């Protein structure tokens, strides 16, 4: 029997696959998701697993300056027993929380205008304005902030007539720069959240006699809260992991800079890997709380 006869007597391979896919919707979904999910599992979870494994290795900084793959908890013991790592972690989480609050406050009015008040034209103009900083190099923005905050910089020049001076480089500078850099990540989900608030509810609230503040507190805020939390996931996690901005505008140690120093400068991968589990854990807790607030439906 020749191949030509085969194709006439039985359906082609493509047709057979199509038939299977039509009959089994689950296979259809699975085959569509296989590549991206596989990518995530292998490269995201896989690299995390390797990182976690490395946290149990040993780095000899005394004689050989090499890593040996022996299992021990010494890196975690070092992280727990030395208070400096706790204070660094605490400082990082604190800054991340402050950046969150600041960005939420700053994003609220513009997101409200974008989601509720603006017509299509103004909305797209605002959208571009919000996104514009994201299209500029991250490093350029940080270096610009260095020029603003330095002793002979723009800020001090502006404040000089008032006999004041800026905060200079340090923790305050880190807070300012990160609040600025991550702001668009808060505005965009929040604007989408406002868009989903039905205008009819606002009208109903007014018709029932609620004042502006009451409407805002009892109707608007509960409805956009998930979007607010969704935005905060971005600002929080990005602040938690940043190491470039913090090293450019301060000498203060944050989780990211300590990981970078141990990895990129010293070569102590095990300690860096162990410390890297801290922001992972913090984010797991944060995401569980965010899920409770319904943030994932608002993403």
């Amino acid at each position, binding site marked *: 029997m020749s191949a030509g006869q085969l194709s006439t007597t039985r359906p082609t391979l493509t047709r057979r696959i199509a038939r299977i896919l039509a009959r089994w919707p689950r296979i259809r979904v699975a085959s569509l998701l296989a590549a991206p999910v596989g990518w995530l599992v292998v490269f995201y979870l896989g690299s995390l697993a*390797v990182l976690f494994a*490395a946290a149990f290795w040993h*780095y*000899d*900084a*005394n*004689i*050989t*300056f*090499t*890593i040996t*793959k022996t299992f021990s908890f010494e890196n975690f013991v*070092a992280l727990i027993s*030395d208070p*400096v*790592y706790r*204070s*660094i972690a605490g400082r990082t989480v604190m800054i991340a929380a402050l950046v969150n609050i600041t960005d939420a406050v700053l994003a609220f009015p513009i997101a409200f205008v974008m989601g509720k008040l603006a017509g299509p034209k103004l909305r797209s103009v605002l959208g571009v304005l919000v996104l514009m900083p994201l299209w500029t190099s991250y490093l350029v923005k940080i270096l610009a902030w*260095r020029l603003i905050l*330095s*002793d*002979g*910089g723009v800020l001090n020049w502006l404040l000089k007539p008032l006999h004041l001076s800026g905060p*200079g*480089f340090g923790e305050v500078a880190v807070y300012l720069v990160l609040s600025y850099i991550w702001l668009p990540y808060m505005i965009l989900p929040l604007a989408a959240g406002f868009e989903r608030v039905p205008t009819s509810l606002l009208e109903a609230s007014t018709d029932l006699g609620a004042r502006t503040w009451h409407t805002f507190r009892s109707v608007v805020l509960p409805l956009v809260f998930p979007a607010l939390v969704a935005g905060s996931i971005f600002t929080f996690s990005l602040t938690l992991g940043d190491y470039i901005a913090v090293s450019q505008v*301060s*000498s*203060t*140690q944050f989780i990211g800079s*300590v990981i970078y*120093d141990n*990895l*990129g*400068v*010293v*070569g*102590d*991968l095990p300690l*860096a890997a162990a410390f890297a589990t801290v922001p992972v854990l913090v984010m797991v807790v944060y995401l569980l709380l965010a899920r409770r607030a319904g943030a994932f439906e608002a993403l």
Partner: protein
Amino acid sequence: MITRRSRLWVSAACASLGIAACGSASPGGSSGPAMLTKIGPGEGALNIIVWAGYAEAGQDDPTVDWVTPFQNQTGCKVNAKIANTSDEMDALMETGQYDGVSASGNATLRLMAGGTAAPINVNLLTNYADINPSLKDQPYNTYNGVHYGVPHGWGANLLMWRTDIVKPAPDSWGVVFDPNSPYKGKITAYDDPIYIADAALYLKSTRPDLHITDPYELDTTQFNATVNLLKAQHTVIGTYWSDYTKEQSAFANADSVVGTTWQVIANLLLTDKNPTPVAVTVPKEGSTGWSDTWMMYSHAAHPNCMYLWMNWITSPAVQAQVAQWFGEAPANLKACDIIAKTDPTFCATYHVGDAIYLHNLALWKVPLTNCGDSRGNVCKGYSDWLHAWTDIKG
């Protein structure tokens, strides 16, 4: 991270296959390819890790260029990567992407002991005979009697200050260790664990009761006193620096007004189009310093170009250029004859050939648990220095 890990995977794979030849971490560096006996034609490229100012191709000053003539002469296209600290140099060498490095004493021991650096055939080094004898056969370039490189030059870490702001001119490191300093928030220090030695050196003369003999050989009491001094200093530090451009801009903008520096940074500030008024000195307590060695990677992709570079950079004319640009004592003593034509006092200022001055300089080296004297194994090793540095910065 990836490169270190992949190195581990490679060695794991080698181990499981039982291939002895591919092990690269055997001490003594005996594992690399055989030592060259003759310099062949260049491979067309050279990747090197350098301190700022060691590979100038006219990028800072169009007239300061010893890389382009080298490229023209040898055909080796130079790709120079500037590293800020010895730890960074070591980590970069470990990636295996570079042919060589201008390493200081606190990196060289690891490179030699870990087998990352290749033994060097000094018979192929055309300028080796003219190198300052005080720099040859030193623990930072010779390991178990084997030569691992050619000396480049040496110098002291200096105290720099803004002459328009810091008055009177300081003559002691005390100015950067005073917790009640009037320059609080404008003091800078080198961001590297090796800076602990600078504080130990200060305590060596100001706290004789601690009996510090060598700032790199600190027992627990001496170490704790030094760390406490640095923790107190942390409260007056504005920013630490390790990137030389960061320190340059910090002094130019008066974010830093006093602190430790290299001569080359002061030179860049003074010769800038908008010069910054700074001065430098070796304070009365003395200084830590460095003596650099050109070393080659044990599996260098371009070994001929690396040998050609070592011969080029140690030739009297190039040594004169580097020494004057960076502000250091050249290793090749013949360079002084050339420098003297334009700057007769230069070599005296940098104590070239002054073996006693060199001996008294606390040259960067790896702190080991073995104190190297009768105290035995009670000193703090580098891992303690690393952790202490994280502690100090808080």
